[in-house]
């Protein structure tokens, strides 16, 4: 019976699409019906998923395993069969530290400096980005003049390539850039922004927030607009203060969107590379060198391209991201259960 209704639906579709598609569907009907008889109706979805799974597996799952295999090998050859197996040596090299809080005591000090910098970046970038995105979304959700225009303005940087974003800000911040020209014009001294570690980190965080905030604002704005207006009307009738409305209605109902924003921002923050690489080059010294840049340098820019060590570092990064994702899933599930 189910089969009949499926065929009717298929026939209807085919009728819409014209003769060639109709022919294709007719050709597929027989083999699909045969497969369904063979494996049963419940397993049929797997047949349709198979092409996508094969594609995904080939280009995502398989590379993950290849990367893990590389992390267990050494030498400089690119082809797997040419690389000597070294077990967990690369991981041991990465994790060998006298004092884990001081990167200089670690054998691979730049790996730990990359982790330390990434944590600092993620902490400040995610905190401020979520805060600013929320404030912006709350403002853009109100009936203000030119609301559509401002929504577009805040979203515009998201459309730019990270390299373009970084180059724009580099021109602003260089020794002879626009900002220093302005400082000099009002009688102040130039500031060498990319020479001070603190300034470099500040601008890395600022530019990243500037570039990505619009995307998160959009998610929060969608969440705000999904909150039923009658809740606010009831609160208004009760004479509830706007502060209480925010804490008791807006924030709890916006929480699922907030959670998505936080986790997405965390994952994106841990993966930070392109715009900061163009903006500061990782400098001064290693002040803005993040974990992904460490992997890139180790695997590609050094004369001896250490793919094994780079792969081991990327496995560590992958594990960290996996933990973050699991935490998000757990938190979401708890919220759904509640």
């Amino acid at each position, binding site marked *: 019976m189910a089969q009949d209704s499926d065929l009717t639906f298929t026939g209807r579709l085919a009728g819409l699409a014209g003769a060639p598609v109709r022919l294709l569907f007719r050709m597929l009907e027989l083999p699909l019906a045969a497969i369904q008889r063979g494996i049963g109706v419940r397993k049929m979805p797997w047949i349709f998923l198979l092409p996508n799974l094969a594609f995904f597996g080939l280009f995502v799952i398989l590379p993950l395993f290849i990367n893990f295999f590389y992390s267990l090998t050494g030498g400089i050859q690119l082809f797997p069969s040419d690389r000597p197996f070294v077990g967990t040596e690369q991981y041991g090299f990465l994790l060998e530290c006298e004092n884990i809080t001081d990167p200089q005591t670690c054998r691979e000090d730049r790996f730990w400096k990359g982790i330390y910098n990434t944590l600092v970046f993620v902490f400040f970038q995610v905190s401020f980005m979520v805060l600013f995105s929320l404030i912006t979304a709350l403002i853009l959700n109100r009936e203000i003049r030119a609301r559509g225009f401002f929504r577009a303005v805040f979203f515009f940087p998201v459309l730019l390539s990270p390299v373009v974003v970084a180059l724009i800000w580099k021109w602003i911040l260089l020794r002879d850039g626009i900002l220093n020209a302005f400082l000099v014009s009002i009688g102040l001294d130039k500031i060498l922004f990319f020479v001070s570690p603190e300034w470099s980190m500040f601008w890395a965080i600022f530019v990243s927030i500037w570039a990505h905030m619009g995307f998160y604002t959009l998610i929060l704005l969608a969440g705000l607009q999904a909150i039923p207006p009658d809740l606010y009307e009831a609160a208004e009738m009760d004479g509830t203060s706007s502060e209480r409305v925010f804490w008791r209605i807006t924030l709890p109902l916006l929480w699922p969107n907030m959670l998505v924003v936080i986790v997405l921002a965390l994952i994106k923050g841990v993966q930070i590379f392109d715009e900061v690489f163009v903006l500061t*080059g990782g400098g001064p*010294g290693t002040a803005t060198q993040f974990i992904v840049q460490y992997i890139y340098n180790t695997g590609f820019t*050094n004369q001896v391209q250490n793919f094994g060590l780079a792969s081991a570092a990327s496995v560590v990064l992958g594990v960290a991201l996996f933990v973050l994702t699991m935490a998000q899933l757990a938190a979401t599930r708890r919220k759904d259960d509640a």
Partner: protein
Amino acid sequence: MIGKFKLLLGTCALALGLSTGAALADTELRMTWYNDGIEGEVMQGLLDRFEAENSDITVVLDVVPYKSIIESLPVQLAAGEGPDLARVTDLGGLSEHYLDMTPYLKDANYWRTNFGPFLKWLDPDGNAINGFMTQLTVTGPYINKTLFEQAGVALPGNKATWDDYATAVNKVADKLDIPIPMAWDRSGHRVSGPAIAMGAKMFDSAGNPALVDNGLKQMAQRLYDWHQDGTMSKDLWGSVSGSAYLGANEDFANAQTVMYMSGSWQIPQFAETIGDAFDWWAVPAPCGPAACTGMPGGAALVGLAGTDHPEEVAKLMDFLAQEKQLSEFYGKTLFIPGHLGLAESGVDFDTDDPRAKHALSTFSAAVPGISPVAFDLQGYANNRVMFNALISRLNEAIVGELTLDEAYERMTSDVEKELAEKERN
């Protein structure tokens, strides 16, 4: 009528067959190239001439940024996906990927006679013929002579030391309010010449790399001090990380720095960008207790082993390496010739710019004074491992992340680590 039609049909079929045959016989060679100045245009002119003489071979000149030559090309080659030819500067480091053209060349002796000493830079372990030097380079400083004259400060003489220059450029900068008294390319290759002048040996008695010694420390200490006292701007060396290259050519061209340590390859660029805006002079390499030396170097055009057309690559290289072509190439690009015959007979450099001529003669005159240690280092296949360790760790000391002593320890361990990884295969 039918006969005429058949004749027409037959002619068309023949023409189609011939043109298809010709198309099938066409060979396309890809040459990866980067530009310091105008050499891409000059090379394209030579390639056009080659194609006119060899209608079955097409050469595509892929001009890429220098960074791609350093970072992307090695990965391409390791994956077996490289071009047929490339212009490279990591001469020995990429040697395993070069094509030995010896069996395909018209006259291998011509190559050995005219490119002999440089062939070993490309193939440190063997006797292969892989390519030729598109230019020889010598590292050394440029000064803004106009600023010296405006400030009334005398130019340090021929045997002046780096300290003499540091004192002089600071005086000029103070008097004229120039933001950067001295700038160096952020490059280990650039630092190595002055370090050798201070007595750095670079190798131990067994010929193994030994980067850190008293000579290197002497120069590293100076670079550190100059960054702290403002002789050099942290903005140039400090604003990037790792072994990233950063040049100060724009600062020099914009008269933002009094002295610029770079090399002979900047001549055509300065001739074009600075022109006669001010007097830019190349000066002899400043001295240390051990020598007055820069580093030799250069870029080479090499055939690559991954090519499917080794004969055609050799044919093209044979064409480009002839004296007629190279004389035109060096003359137009203002490059120091890497061809012994032309070096002896002289190249008619295509410039009336007295500054460019002066710079060319200064760098040419510097060649005999280059230290043997510098030649050994240039010929060492893994020299970039040493250069990168030097530049990245010294930089971390300059910006205050490491002490100089910690930086020296890290330089040594970085070199050991990378070489050990390389030898594991």
